[in-house]
């Protein structure tokens, strides 16, 4: 069913630049609330740096807890950008247009947020400056470059660099639009960022080809980043961690949580910025169908991991699986994983009527991320707390208020960064929407008028 309204180009530009020029009351409320939570985040981090990592629940053998779980979670959320932007750009899916920028920018900010957690986890993050620069080879310390823990920062920084480039290239035409419609310091900022873009044929050609090339390059980086993150665990010989499936399992889980986060973001943008004409039910319908496939693939990998942990009937593996399935709080987390991660949202998404309901999509997407956060915790912590051979070495991990504050604060950090971004740049690509308008059409089939799109061959 055709929902696109043919809007004049002036109106499209005005609507999509509205968040940049006008700050609504709800925007201010969001800034204040998020700012408050962010303050608590900074306070909690400062408290931990001052008093030491001992204020958290981390202790032998649970050296990794909430912070690594959150690191993995935010890296996962960051995969949405590449999934939606790169893959849909390469396959020329029309419905990607209003979604790509929000997905790409969320990728960028999620990655930055994820990277804060290993730094905070060191307890004295300033020391990373003088053990990273110059790198240890020159001082006679030889880090094992075959270790996933050494490959990880390289992968994440490469991904971040690639994402920033990708976002930048796809925003150049919008910088030009903003440059031509602004004054003062904003005009100077946009003029620099626009790199002299004037909409000439060659410039468009270069911009389009760069976008395609970067999208193709980002795909391989996107797979490798979360694979390497999974290998932080799987390369070790810890029981239930040392599994061959973790790399693609993490990647597909990342896509599942990331694309769900994009749905959450789309619903919030539609509500906050009044983008009803641009983020239409058809977009939620399309992304919902994608989520059914991605969610089902994730469930398949989850079942593979569980079944093959039990396959060999190894006594050590069985003890940890027993903990995961029957011990508190893991039994609750397992329920969250199954129910919130799959068995509520995916059956709902099978029905078109619910996929096109924005409220339903919003709440189911949040459920998925509750389930996926629980899944990361369920995967990581039980393997650690019973990793040693002797049961007197086993302890339970009890996260403290500092860790909980850091987790909640990370959501506020991403939210704040996204709001600040929307004050400087349009959250929906203006040039992409204008192009989509040109490519939209209709054809007559019998008595019906059917929406159509232009294809070049």
């Amino acid at each position, binding site marked *: 069913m055709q929902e696109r309204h043919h809007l004049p180009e002036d109106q499209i530009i005005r609507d999509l630049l509205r968040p940049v020029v006008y700050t609504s009351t709800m925007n201010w409320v969001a800034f204040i609330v998020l700012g408050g939570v962010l303050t608590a985040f900074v306070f909690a981090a400062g408290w931990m740096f001052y008093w030491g990592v001992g204020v958290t629940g981390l202790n032998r053998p649970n050296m990794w807890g909430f912070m690594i779980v959150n690191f993995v979670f935010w890296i996962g959320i960051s995969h949405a950008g590449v999934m939606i932007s790169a893959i849909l750009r390469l*396959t020329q899916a*029309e419905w990607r247009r209003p979604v790509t920028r929000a997905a790409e920018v969320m990728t960028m900010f999620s990655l930055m947020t994820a990277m804060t957690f290993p730094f905070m986890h060191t307890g004295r993050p300033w020391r990373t400056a003088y053990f990273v620069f110059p790198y240890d080879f020159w001082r006679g310390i030889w880090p094992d470059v*075959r270790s996933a823990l050494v490959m990880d920062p390289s992968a994440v920084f490469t991904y971040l660099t690639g994402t920033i480039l990708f976002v930048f290239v796809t925003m150049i035409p919008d910088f030009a639009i903003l440059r031509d419609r602004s004054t003062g310091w904003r005009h100077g900022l946009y003029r620099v960022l626009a790199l002299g873009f004037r909409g000439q*044929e060659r410039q468009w*050609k270069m911009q*389009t*080809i760069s976008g*395609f090339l970067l999208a193709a390059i980002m795909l391989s980086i996107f*797979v490798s980043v979360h*694979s390497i993150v999974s*290998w932080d665990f*799987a*390369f070790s*010989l810890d029981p239930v961690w*040392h*599994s*061959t*499936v*973790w*790399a*693609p399992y993490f990647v597909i889980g990342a896509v599942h949580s990331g694309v769900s986060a994009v749905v959450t973001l789309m619903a919030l943008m539609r509500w906050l910025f009044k983008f009803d004409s641009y983020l239409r039910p058809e977009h939620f319908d399309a992304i919902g*169908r994608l989520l059914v*496939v991605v969610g*089902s693939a994730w469930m*398949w*990998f989850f079942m*593979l*991991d569980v*079944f*093959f*942990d*039990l*396959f*060999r*009937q190894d006594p050590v593996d069985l003890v940890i699986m027993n903990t995961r399935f029957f011990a508190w709080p893991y039994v609750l987390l397992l329920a969250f994983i199954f129910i919130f991660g799959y068995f509520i949202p995916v059956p709902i998404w099978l029905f078109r009527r619910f996929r096109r309901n924005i409220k339903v999509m919003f709440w189911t997407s949040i459920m998925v991320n509750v389930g996926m956060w629980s899944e990361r915790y369920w995967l990581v912590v039980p393997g650690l707390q019973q990793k040693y051979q002797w049961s007197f070495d086993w302890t339970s991990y009890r996260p403290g208020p500092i860790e909980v504050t850091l987790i909640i604060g990370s959501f506020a950090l991403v939210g704040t960064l996204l709001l600040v971004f929307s004050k400087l740049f349009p959250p929906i690509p203006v040039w992409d929407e204008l192009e989509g308008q040109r490519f939209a*059409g209709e*054809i007559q*089939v*019998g008595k*019906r008028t*059917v*929406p*159509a*799109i*232009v*294809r*070049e*061959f």
Partner: protein
Amino acid sequence: MATHAEHAHGHRRVQRTWDLTPQQVVTDGLQRIRAAGSSYRLALIISAILGVIGVIALIIRPIIGAGWGDRQAWTYVAATFGFLMSTVGSAPCFSVAMRLTRGHWRRPVNRLAELWGAGLIVPFILLVLLIFVLPNTEGRQTLWFGWWAAPYLWDIVMMLALTICGYGFLYVASLPDMAIARDQVERDRPGRFTRMARGFRGTVYQWQIIDRGVAYLGALYILLYVGTMTVMASELILALLPGDNSAIFPAAYTVAGLESGIAVTIIAMAVFRRWGGAGEYLESEQFFAASKLMLALGLLWFYFHWTEFVIWWYGRTPRELSLLKVLYFEPYFWLFVIAFACMFLAPLFVLVWTRIRMGIAGPTVAACLVVVGQAVDQVRLMSASFSIPNIYEKELSIIPNAYIPGVFDILLYVGLAGGAFALVLLALKVVAYPSIWEITAGLWLRARKQYYKTEVTLIGKPN
């Protein structure tokens, strides 16, 4: 101003398919049903003879060998089963995937992918024979955890469900064309099409049933295929290799199957284009799109195998080193090299070039190599797993020597594959190619439009 497509692909011409009239499509679709050509008859005879040879070899092999109970004697039966599941069984999944993405290029290709499902009865029969060679689940690695009648009953039930679903999917998807054949070919003399079309008259309600039937059966087929391949990979390979609990292996096995399914569909496209008179339906757009997917799955094949290898390599426990030796580096090293080259390197180096993907020969050559690679890989995996003398160990203590096939092994491998192909060819006498109703729908949903200095196509998106 040159279009983006020309910059990206160097191609401007619109496919001739969309210039045809519905009447031309009907004539072309019913052509093989009305009268088969000599090349069709020759192909059918050869593949039927191969099928008979395969059956004879299947019966004789255990008789002249160490008997029906010797698991190693069934190696090539298992390899044939795996090969057919990865080709004939997986091609319909390609059709379902194309329908899910709602691309219009798929219309001339769907039927070719679905037709391969006509051969599903062959792997089903092979599994029924093969499954009783396996011991029950007590004391060994298994997915069934002591379930009653496992693995025999459940494996057969899964395979039966897949087979029925595959035939059902083919039937429902071709029902409107059977109705056309009833009306055009059997006008005055009701025959098989009248029975099979079951009163289909093209009412709105009937079309809704077809749409939903195709969608639900297709989705069910994919779920059953993935589930069946997961179980078969576990049953026929992992469970027989002591200490092998590689969770990624079933996924790798399934993805390899999906890659081969696309490969056999591309080969069918090339054959029909060259000898089947379907040159107007199968042009570079279809080969370009299908080869992109095949390349993506080839990359995924490598990724899954690499993750398995790297985890075992980093772990380096004696158990993992034994598995690396038996599967990759010792008795079956050269088979692995061939499979690696054909299923990953060849598609990568051939199909990474846009110009080659836009042609016909490039994707076809890559597809042929993928099918060869799949055939070799199945031999590698089944030879390794079926050669283990003691599957009750906790880890592999002795790496067995490579299993060298005899004449009857080769005959049954080639012959049974030929037999499945014969069934696919027979299906062409009742299932029209090209898919008349889908191509005609595509004709209605396209229009040409002048766009500045170029001409573009408007593609309708009713959903």
